């Protein structure tokens, strides 16, 4: 074995870059999830005007996470960020029962878009700490997730403000990419 091939073996494999898209209604907790992924302080979050982006290195992947504002006025811009998305992450405020229908409609609109065809989707059932919140299983039923047949999907319960459950969701994201 030559020196060159030994050196080549020692060199770490280049990280695979992934593009993750974080979407959901306003006040769902997208920015909190983004910041907790990047291990940043989450005590002074403000509503997102436009978007935030952060790169996180985990599990041999470089994740470029795009967090786009969720208010109604910004939603028409979501489609500009669909291209080359590897995984869609959809965040739901599990305690916001009044807007479950609205969040469901937005989710199915995303799933029916051609540019997001076959893209795996992870749904975060966020704010599990709130007393009136739905469990992940209840939320999956309400949103009709089991009817999704054309792609891999997963629901993950989490409390982003305490950093609970966020990592588990990202593990599924990395696994579903490796399978591809």
């Amino acid at each position, binding site marked *: 074995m030559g020196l060159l091939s030994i050196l080549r073996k020692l060199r770490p494999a280049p990280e695979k870059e992934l593009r993750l898209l974080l979407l959901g209604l306003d006040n769902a907790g997208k920015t909190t999830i983004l910041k907790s992924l990047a291990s940043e302080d989450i005590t002074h979050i403000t*509503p997102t005007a436009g978007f935030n982006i952060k790169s996180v290195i985990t599990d041999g992947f470089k994740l470029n996470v795009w967090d786009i504002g969720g208010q109604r006025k910004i939603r028409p811009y979501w489609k500009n960020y669909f291209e080359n998305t590897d995984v869609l992450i959809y965040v739901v405020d599990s305690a916001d029962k009044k807007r479950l229908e609205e969040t469901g409609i937005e989710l199915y609109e995303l799933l029916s878009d051609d540019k997001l065809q076959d893209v795996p989707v992870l749904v975060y059932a966020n704010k599990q700490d709130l007393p009136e919140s739905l469990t992940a299983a209840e939320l999956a039923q309400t949103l009709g997730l089991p009817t999704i047949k054309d792609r891999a999907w997963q629901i993950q319960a989490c409390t982003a403000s305490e950093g609970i459950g966020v990592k588990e969701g990202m593990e599924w994201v990395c696994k579903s990419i490796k399978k591809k």
Partner: protein
Amino acid sequence: MTFSLWWLFTLYLRPIIKWFLRKTTGLCELQRICYGEVNGAPRIRAVERSLALSKSQQIKQLLQHLNDISDNRRFAGTNEREVVRGAVSTVLLVKKVNPHVHFQFVRSLGICIEQIWGYRQLIAEVEALRTTKFDSDCFEHERKLYDLWDNLMPDEGLEGRVTKQWQDIGFQGDDPKTDFRGMGMLGLENLLFFSSEYQAPARHVLSHSHHPVYGYCFAIVGINLTSLAWQMLRDGSAKTYVYNTSKSLPSVRLFHQFYSYLFYEFDRFWVECKPRDIMEFSSIKDRFESNIRTSLQDGNTTFRIGVSVDNI
């Protein structure tokens, strides 16, 4: 490398230079600063640095005492005058300065101490507002929200507490309560101050936010600017502004004025940038922030809202 050089300088060289200057001028470092530096931020910042580097046990104890008072927001009223007087006499005693000869120094040092620990207290006051969550069951919080509406939209009544109309002044949905988030009541108080103390400029800014191309969400951008002002207060960048503007003990009012300036200037900058849409907010905000930080590095900077009405 630069760090160890700096360390070497402060540990060995600085005392030698100070001793030499003290012997030749007959003045201690604080006196040289108070007599030599320009009034305002340059002088106050230099006094602050000099005190922080002091190796005297008594001065160190004094600083701790002052920090404790301002962190607990007890630096006010008659207490404030007594605290300042006590602090000045400690310095006079330690540095062996004759107050009758150097009465100007006594006055000047007193002002510096008031500003330095007034600023520190301001951080604590602003933080208390920020950590107060907006509570829709609290009458006063609700009243402030209605006041904000009345200031900005005097000709239009609200149809209800939860209504789409809130989006006209740039909240995200039908109920503003979730929009304050990490900025708490500070976000609302900032907006309320801007819209009541600078009513005409605020309405002017609001009208820009309704522009068909360059429009943005007034309240949401406002809350993001609260976050910017708060960060600059905390990391000390806002000292230049406070030290140059404040005529007495810095108060929350001064922070609101700083915020109002930022909002007015941001709006102007935003329109100048001719953004394609709201998605350019982060990049334009970053550029705006770096411009403000650059001007705050200049010790002579003061900010004033230059009211001019333009049409786009």
